[in-house]
């Protein structure tokens, strides 16, 4: 038994907010009490200890994501994360194949319910084509829920799309059908096509649905032109709709946040929206976002509640996360409140001074201790997809014969498809990416190769630091000639070896 001694324990689910010991054994919370005894004692005097933090809005999968998802999870004191819209119904299996067993952090998913292969890259340059709307295979969603439903915690939808409010209503219907909340993005509307009906989401959302980016300062926010909270927003709050911070790269305005808080609308959940386009600032970490919320008047207990018990309850994870109840997994975050003079920037570059910041020190996942490293995520190899252009990655020499045969068949199939990197400009050519994606999946099916082996073998031909992303979306970024040459080289090596 391991005793975590002397920390100030904040566990809002159980009403604990005092210095007390926590005992863990066999990867679970054993007990909470005074002067507990055990074989190993870790002195945490002067630090805070809370249930493991939950970040319900991160991007680990797809081109927004990271090579090392733990770098924004457990290494920043976050023990559970939800990928917000990375995969769609057609790539949930790829998401699992690429992430299962790869992270210490518990990784859940909130797939994009209107985009078959999920968020593509920078969603505002994807262009919205009807193909993103017509592909709603309800039976496939229900089959997924029956087989893998525990992994899926919400369905994500953006409050825009160029096709009116019908898409949002369909998303709400699908969420009701699969029995999960709808997670609604209302941010960066200036970058999106078809936003005129965006505020209709405040009427479509129901009790338990979650609206993220509540403090964004772009068009179609929660305030009217005079800075008052819109009546439909108050109505949504009264119906039981939940609000989430979702800081992100575009969607946190000090001015909006201060006005919203002053009028008494307080988000129940704090999330980061960490992705490769904001990890070097202004987001940095969930702890940083929690610090920003303390500047808005929240206490340490308030911010802890909004990353533990509140998100756990909202996503029906409260049987396994968000509290320190005996028997629950020992997911724990230990952090300091460090005094000092700091500046916190919003997404428009405006700053506010703070006199403290939150500094995660260590985290426990199922009882396993990880010391935090807040800068680990900033390594360029973690966030920048670096295609090995000059020579094949070392991993390409270690492919199995099954992988080599698969890559040879893939080369033959792709040789019959034309694409150029011009398909990325001026808008992402989604239909072409889907053609490439279907081709990849067709060869996987013909070959009978496990999806994980197919994906890792494929990426090992091009990347030194594999990304967790959609095969078709990757293909469209790589010059066609290079793709064919690499894949042929891989398959010819197989012939030599045989």
């Amino acid at each position, binding site marked *: 038994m391991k005793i975590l001694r002397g920390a100030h324990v904040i566990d809002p689910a159980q009403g604990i907010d005092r210095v007390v010991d926590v005992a863990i054994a066999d990867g679970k919370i054993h007990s909470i009490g005074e002067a507990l005894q055990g074989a190993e004692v870790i002195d945490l005097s002067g630090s805070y200890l809370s249930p493991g933090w939950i970040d319900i809005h991160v991007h680990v999968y797809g*081109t927004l994501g990271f090579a090392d998802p733990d770098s924004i999870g457990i290494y920043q004191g976050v023990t559970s994360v939800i990928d917000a819209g990375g995969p769609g119904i057609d790539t949930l299996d790829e998401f699992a194949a690429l992430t299962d067993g790869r992270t210490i952090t518990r990784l859940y998913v909130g797939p994009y319910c209107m985009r078959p292969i999920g968020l593509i*890259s*920078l969603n505002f*340059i994807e262009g919205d084509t009807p193909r993103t709307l017509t592909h709603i295979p309800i039976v496939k969603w229900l089959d997924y829920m029956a087989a893998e439903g525990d992994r899926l915690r919400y369905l994500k939808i953006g409050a825009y799309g160029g096709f009116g409010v019908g898409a949002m209503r369909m998303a709400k219907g699908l969420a009701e059908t699969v029995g999960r909340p709808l997670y609604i993005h209302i941010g960066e509307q200036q970058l999106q096509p078809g936003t005129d009906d965006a505020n209709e989401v405040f009427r479509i959302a129901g009790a338990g649905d979650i609206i993220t980016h509540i403090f964004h300062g772009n068009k179609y926010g929660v305030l009217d032109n005079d800075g008052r909270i819109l009546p439909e927003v108050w109505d949504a709050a009264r119906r039981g709709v939940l609000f989430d911070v979702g800081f992100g*790269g*575009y969607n946190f305005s000090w001015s909006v946040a201060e006005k919203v808080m002053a009028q008494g609308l307080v988000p129940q959940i704090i999330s980061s929206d960490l992705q*490769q*386009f*904001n*990890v*070097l*600032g202004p987001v940095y970490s969930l702890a940083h976002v929690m610090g920003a919320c303390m500047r808005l008047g929240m206490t340490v207990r308030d911010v802890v509640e909004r990353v533990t018990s509140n998100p756990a309850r909202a996503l029906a994870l409260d049987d396994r996360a968000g509290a320190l109840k005996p028997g629950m997994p020992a997911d724990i975050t230990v952090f300091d409140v460090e005094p000092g003079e700091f500046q916190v920037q919003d997404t428009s*570059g405006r700053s506010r001074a703070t006199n403290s910041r939150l500094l995660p020190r260590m985290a426990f996942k199922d009882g396993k201790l990880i010391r935090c490293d807040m800068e680990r995520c900033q390594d*360029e190899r973690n*966030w*920048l*997809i670096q295609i090995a252009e000059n020579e094949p990655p070392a991993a390409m020499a270690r492919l199995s014969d099954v992988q080599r045969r698969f890559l040879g068949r893939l080369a033959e199939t792709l040789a019959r498809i034309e694409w150029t990197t011009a398909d*990325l*400009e*001026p*808008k*992402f050519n989604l239909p072409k990416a889907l053609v490439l994606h279907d081709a990849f999946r067709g060869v996987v099916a013909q070959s009978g190769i496990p999806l994980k082996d197919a994906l890792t073998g494929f990426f090992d031909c091009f990347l030194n630091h594999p990304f967790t992303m959609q095969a078709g979306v990757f293909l469209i*970024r790589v010059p066609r000639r290079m793709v064919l040459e690499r894949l042929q080289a891989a398959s010819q090596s197989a012939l030599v070896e045989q």
Partner: protein
Amino acid sequence: MSVVEGEWQRIDGVDASTARFPVRTKCGTEGIVIFRTGDGYFGVQQACPHQGGSMTNAVLQGNGSMIRCTRHNYVFRTANGNPVNCPGFRLKIFEVREVEGRLQVRPAA
């Protein structure tokens, strides 16, 4: 007057020996940020093609092969301005040379 393709144009008001790089300047009507590298200089358009973030805050990485706008982490190749992680956006790149202590600029080929 904007920068004319192929012709070197003098940058006024920047003394290469005393300027603190990266330096923001203008050539005609075109805003340019000039960076000093190990063996010379290069220039980029002043405003990031994504959201107009100032490239004076940009950071060189990958041994100077890439330049990153710090506003949203958009990364471009310094050789040709091609996007690394942001398909659909291209940064204008300028060749810069020093002649008798004065800088001259022209669009990269």
